[in-house]
């Protein structure tokens, strides 16, 4: 397979799966981007000599939890928000006056806001080579659709990456650190002495006692 064929296959694949839908493109490229950056960040903590071992026990699990929660919540929340925003525009629930005019022109008013209507699948929009294709309707629709898709996918990614993930990874990282410290204490217990033992030269002997008690004076009081 030469470079030309490979590049055309790649271009066709991208065009078919990602080009026509901005929200889907941002979702999946964002997911792979997070996977790559998480792997690099875990390595960064592991090789940083200035971070003490004790803190690495929190930070490495935190990074792994960060990666797992980040990726899972990114997919779930971003996809949900993107799909919701796109559905609003595809069903005609959210539209501009121009789009409403076209909807009325093609007698689609009764289906607006319902599952039965998907404007992207209409012959006036979907197939640009079709004789039914309406360039003005298509332009008016996609001017709104692309913007709403970007806005909702960005909101979803902000909520997942900047709010849900930090709280979740901190909780998981702290839990992991506590378990790690407890495990360390179990494997290396600290031995305490049972009673204090004085060195031989500091012991008070019976002769010292006799010498002290046989003394006729008692402090400053002269008898």
């Amino acid at each position, binding site marked *: 397979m030469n470079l030309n064929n490979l590049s055309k296959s790649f271009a066709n694949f991208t065009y078919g799966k990602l080009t026509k839908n901005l929200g889907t493109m941002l979702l999946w490229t964002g997911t792979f981007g997070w996977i*790559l950056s998480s792997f690099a960040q875990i390595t960064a903590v592991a090789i*940083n000599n200035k971070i003490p071992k004790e803190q690495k026990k929190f930070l490495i699990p935190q990074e792994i939890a960060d990666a797992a929660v980040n990726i899972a919540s990114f997919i779930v929340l971003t996809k949900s928000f993107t799909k919701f925003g796109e559905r609003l525009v595809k069903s005609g629930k959210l539209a501009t006056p121009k789009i409403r005019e076209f909807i009325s022109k093609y007698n689609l008013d009764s289906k607006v806001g319902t599952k039965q209507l998907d404007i992207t699948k209409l012959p006036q929009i979907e197939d640009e080579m079709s004789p039914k294709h309406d360039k003005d309707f298509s332009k008016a629709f996609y001017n709104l659709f692309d913007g709403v898709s970007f806005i909702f996918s960005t909101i979803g990614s902000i909520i997942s990456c900047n709010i849900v993930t930090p709280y979740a990874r901190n909780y998981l990282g702290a839990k992991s650190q506590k378990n790690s410290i407890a495990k360390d204490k179990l494997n290396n217990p600290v031995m305490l002495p049972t009673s204090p033992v004085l060195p031989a030269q500091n012991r008070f002997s019976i002769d010292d006692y006799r010498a002290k008690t046989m003394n006729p004076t008692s402090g400053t009081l002269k008898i």
Partner: protein
Amino acid sequence: MAINVNTNKRITNGTSFTGAPSKLYTIKNERAQRVIEKIGEYSSPHSRLILGITALMTQPFIDWQNKDVDKDTRRVSTARTIGKIIAGTISGVIVRAGCIALIKKLTDANANKKWQKLLIPTNVSSNEYKNAERLLKKHRGAIGTIVALFVMLFTNFAFDVPVTKFLTNFLNDKFKKNGNKQQTKERGNL
């Protein structure tokens, strides 16, 4: 700037995707329409930049308030989070924007040279591609973003990791000094 959203007519004979009677929203404000249209031209570099800026506004504060760990760990964790956000955002935006600009050279439908049309899809006629300005921009954005992912395999280690490490250590030392100054001040006040 607030988007002026007006409720239009109420449809009662159709079932909405939530099962309730449908309410319609029409964006009548022309300025709002232009803003949404402009946002629709954005791609992954803009998305990454917005994510980075909002991350700086939230994540460090969440880490600093984390009472489940001791003060030292909290300090290092906050410093590392700020370092990670700055390094990741700078490299993410530059690499994505650079790749999309490069892909523009390989998706020129009006060019005469073969290599300048290397990444134009064959399952679309070149006339359709030339006229579909929107699709051309989206196609460049999508391909540029995918190419950027492969470039980031290198920049993550060549740039992100060392810059994150440098910023983490720099900020950690700064926070430590500020913490010690604060403690000295408090002791002096006692």
